[in-house]
């Protein structure tokens, strides 16, 4: 149910200006995709869909970004809860550090990871059999470092809005802290956790910068879709590169819409109103 407010000329002008920005932005995104579509020819699309290497890169992209998201959620749910519910010394600093990976230039992330695995700690990890450089698990590590922050931020914000007193009541009813966390807080934060997972996954699947430095672009081994786009571009096959990019966009769009439908069953918030 939506309500129609009484609108005068000024309020319609206001609504129009708000929608102006929305439309401008959508146009920009759509225009870029349309330009890609216009540039790509059918032959390139067919080649992309047939290529074994590209199919392998697509599968690896989906697989690594999903694993990354799963690991990120293992961290993000307790971290978001800790940052939201507890006041501890250094909380503001911790909160800031969580956001730092977002501002790291992608290339710097790759370099930092490389350098880290030349330190004593890094070498020790490698000697224990945990190799990352030029390995598939290096993809996940790089994606995790860059994209987990988005999920943590989203989940922290959700816990901020989840009613704390429900947990208090659950305690008096006999739940332990852990039970109250899982059965009440996490249960109530479910939508936000899904939103955090979407952000993390979307960031991870599109990640390219650190990978080229840290895991390289080994065909059939460490090549993900963004790397393929880079490789094709570097040998001048722009049409194929764009066709792969479109494939990536299609996969991501389908995934985003699916999860959004699952996570937000109510299409419009109650505060929404019709504008015409």
């Amino acid at each position, binding site marked *: 149910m939506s309500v129609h407010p009484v609108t005068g000329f000024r309020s319609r002008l206001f609504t129009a200006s708000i929608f102006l920005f929305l439309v401008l932005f959508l146009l920009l995104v759509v225009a870029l995709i349309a330009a890609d579509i216009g540039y790509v020819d059918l032959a390139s699309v067919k080649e992309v869909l047939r290529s074994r290497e590209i199919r392998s890169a697509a599968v690896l992209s989906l697989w690594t970004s999903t694993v990354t998201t799963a690991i990120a959620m293992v961290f993000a749910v307790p971290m978001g809860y800790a940052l939201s519910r507890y006041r501890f010394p250094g909380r503001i600093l911790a909160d800031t550090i969580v956001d730092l990976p977002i501002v790291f230039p992608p290339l710097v992330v790759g370099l930092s990871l490389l350098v880290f695995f030349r330190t004593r700690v890094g070498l020790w990890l490698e000697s224990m059999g945990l190799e990352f450089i030029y390995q598939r698990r290096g993809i996940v590590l790089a994606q995790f470092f860059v994209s987990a922050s988005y999920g943590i931020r989203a989940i922290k914000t959700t816990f901020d809005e989840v*009613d704390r*007193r*429900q947990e*208090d*009541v*659950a*305690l*008096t*009813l*006999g*739940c*332990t802290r852990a*039970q109250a966390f899982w059965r*009440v807080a996490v*249960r*109530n934060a479910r939508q936000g956790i899904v939103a955090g997972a979407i952000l993390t996954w979307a960031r991870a699947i599109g990640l390219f910068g650190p990978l080229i430095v840290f895991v390289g672009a080994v065909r059939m081994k460490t090549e993900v879709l963004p790397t393929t786009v880079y490789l094709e571009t570097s040998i001048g096959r722009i049409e194929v590169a764009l066709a792969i990019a479109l494939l990536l966009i299609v996969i991501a769009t389908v995934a985003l819409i699916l999860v959004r439908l699952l996570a937000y069953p109510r299409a419009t918030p109650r505060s929404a109103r019709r504008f015409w």
Partner: protein
Amino acid sequence: MIVLSNLQKSLGSFRLLIEQLEIQPGEYLVILGPSGAGKSVLLLTVAGLIRPDSGQLFFNGGDVTGLPPEKRDVGLVFQEANLFPHLTVAKNIAFGKRYRRKRAAEIQQRVELLIDMLNIRPLLYRTVEGLSGGEKQRVAIARALSIGPTILLLDEPLGLLDQNTREELRKELRRVHDELRTTTLHVTHDRSEAFTMADRIAILNEGRLAQVGPREEIFTRPASEFVARFLGVENVLDAFAEQDASGRTFLRIGESRLPAPSQYQGRVRFCVRPEDVSLHPHVPPRTEAAASLSGTVKSIEDRGAVLRLVVNCPVGDVVVLCGKQQFLGSGLSCSSSVWLRLNAASIHVLPRPD
């Protein structure tokens, strides 16, 4: 019996200090105080959701100060009900059963009893979202009582309800209490709520208990000017207390001198309820047991059947309630000269602040 002993908690510049408070088994105790008095802090400390800095808390003789909330057996209801939105009404009420395996059968019996007692049966399989405020609060009360708590803690439980629902729920809460006899601690800032619900009332101000006693006593014999003002006693007036040779105490109020019990000598303040002051158009006959004061009507407020008058007297402004017919029938109006009579029996001399 629930005993709070020297319980202390500092939060920023606020400090709660309860030297001694005992809640008898089966008693309905209302903590009444202005906002910011520390009522919720007190309640959450009893629940174990706030750890006191020092002091002790006993439930039926056992020290529970160090016990976490899940081991205390307290029922808790907040102002906003705080039902679990992902569960149906039935599952909300039975939530505690899952965590008390040994007593599950007993709790199930109680749940059934409470469902009938609080008229929840038609709502059982509804989701929480569609419930009205009053329905939510009834479910929250049932959920809190389902575990058979040692004490039921209510934090402004009726604060968000509309007036009709609130009055209905007051009766229901009191009826449930009379049937189950669960020891109850109810926090509110609403004095009429305190008066209708409580066996005893504890007045809390700035983190300290200002007075604890049976509700009639609190209202008729406030222990301080703060309590009197907070309870809506509008007439707090000046008098002079003196003692004659035989040790009888008298109060001089304006021109009158009347016998009245007072522990103090010299300047004192006393209170008298507006309904205990009578209004006369002429000098009333002098008696031993009442003080007469002359004054002029300062303002008149129409309250339906009665008028609320403020009469300016030498001892201060006195609020009087007067029947409309009586007032208009005697030809009085604003700025008329009138006489007031205060019965000695209805005068309560306030203790001096230390």
